[in-house]
């Protein structure tokens, strides 16, 4: 989607500060949700304290659903406009979704051990959830299977769209097949869900916290991916290398990350230098603090905005 306006929360001078605000909002909601879920909400009559895992397990699953929906939207947009920014959005969302799915399964295993007495069962929802994680893990890797990054991004977008078909399968698996999982409580065709009002409030608060925190993680990851993207011309690239020095607080070898750009990855072999280490230790504060300075000194490093 070509546009000259800076994308809210991603481009422009205030983007980093706005992202931080989203992060703090998520943290605040999360703190409120955990206090409500862990102490205000009553202990479940049947399951006891183990039921409180619901306040983490369900929001994690919800975040995964949302993230995969974002992959779907970004993938459709990528196929429509072929703008690499949509591919990066799909990648950031898929990474968030896979992480949230793994978290869901791990928390669910603990809850399952407490409530069912088994860590794992060959239950339709468990199997379909693991399959969902596998599909999007493959979707992430598919991006690099072609020497030509544009073709890789196209394959990833196709799988990003097709893979979403598994989300309703996961959600309705407890309805369609006999399962060890219980039926849905909230997204169920009943006007009064069979859940205590305070428990419901705690769950909704935790769902809101997960949504906002997920959005923050997505935006933060996307901003990092964007900052690793190379300008398209050699002249800009030189400006870029000056601008790159500013992100040193992240303690990263930028030379590796730079190979992430489509321009360079076309070489194929240079993409090999792309380590995975270039992302995680990079704190939001490091990027955010340096961003305004970078935008002043090297305006060319925000291309095609």
């Amino acid at each position, binding site marked *: 989607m070509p546009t000259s306006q800076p994308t809210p929360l991603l481009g422009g001078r205030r983007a980093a500060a706005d992202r931080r605000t989203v992060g703090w909002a998520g943290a605040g909601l999360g703190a409120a949700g955990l206090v409500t879920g862990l102490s205000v909400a009553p*202990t479940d*009559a*049947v399951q*006891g304290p183990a039921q409180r895992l619901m306040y983490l397990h369900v929001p994690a699953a919800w975040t995964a659903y949302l993230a995969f929906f974002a992959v779907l939207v970004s993938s459709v947009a990528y196929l429509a406009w072929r703008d690499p920014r949509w591919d990066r959005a799909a990648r950031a969302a898929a990474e968030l979704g896979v992480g949230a799915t793994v978290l869901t399964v791990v928390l669910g295993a603990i809850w399952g051990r407490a409530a069912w*007495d088994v860590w794992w069962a*060959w239950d339709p929802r468990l199997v379909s959830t693991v399959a969902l994680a596998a599909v999007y893990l*493959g979707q992430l890797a598919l991006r690099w299977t072609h020497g030509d990054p544009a073709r890789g991004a196209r394959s990833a977008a196709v799988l990003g769209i097709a893979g979403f078909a598994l989300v309703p399968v996961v959600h309705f698996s407890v309805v369609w097949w*006999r399962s060890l999982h*219980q039926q849905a409580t909230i997204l169920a065709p009943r006007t009064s869900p069979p859940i205590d009002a305070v428990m419901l409030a705690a769950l909704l608060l935790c769902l809101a916290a997960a949504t906002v925190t997920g959005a923050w993680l997505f935006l933060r990851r996307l901003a990092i991916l964007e900052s690793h993207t190379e300008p398209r011309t050699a002249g800009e690239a030189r400006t870029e290398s000056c601008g790159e020095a500013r992100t040193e607080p992240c303690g990263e070898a930028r030379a590796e990350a730079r190979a992430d750009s489509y321009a360079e990855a076309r070489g194929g072999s240079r993409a090999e230098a792309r380590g995975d280490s270039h992302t995680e230790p990079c704190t939001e504060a490091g990027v955010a603090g340096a961003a305004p300075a970078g935008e002043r000194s090297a305006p060319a490093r925000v291309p095609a905005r």
Partner: protein
Amino acid sequence: MTPRRARLLVAAVAVAAAALLVAAGMQGTLTFYRTPAEVLHDPAPAGQRVRLGGTVVPGSLRSEGGRTRFLLRDGAAEITVEQSASLPGTVREGQDAVVEGVLDAHGVFRSDTVMAKHGNEYRPAGPGEAADGGAAR
């Protein structure tokens, strides 16, 4: 990531996903358990492990000498289950459970794994009712 390594990773994920689905098929995922009526009217070949699910009949739970016996009911039929190990604390009378094992020649279901199945209702313990214990429904 080189294209070569990425293709290997995609292939590995695809093989793992296929293995998961094959294992799920062999484990009968799509019919996670059968009801007592189904197991009685259409028994599996002798010695074949099945999962049996139903409600633990209130008053039927007996524990002696490391063995536990109880009745599982689905409204149409009921089966006596003999569990070789002690029962997990999460299984209670009046609630649903899924057991894994084989139906013997005397119609007793010899199980070695018991899974408690809880409902979709969440509520605090009522007066005189302990949370996480003895919650009769």
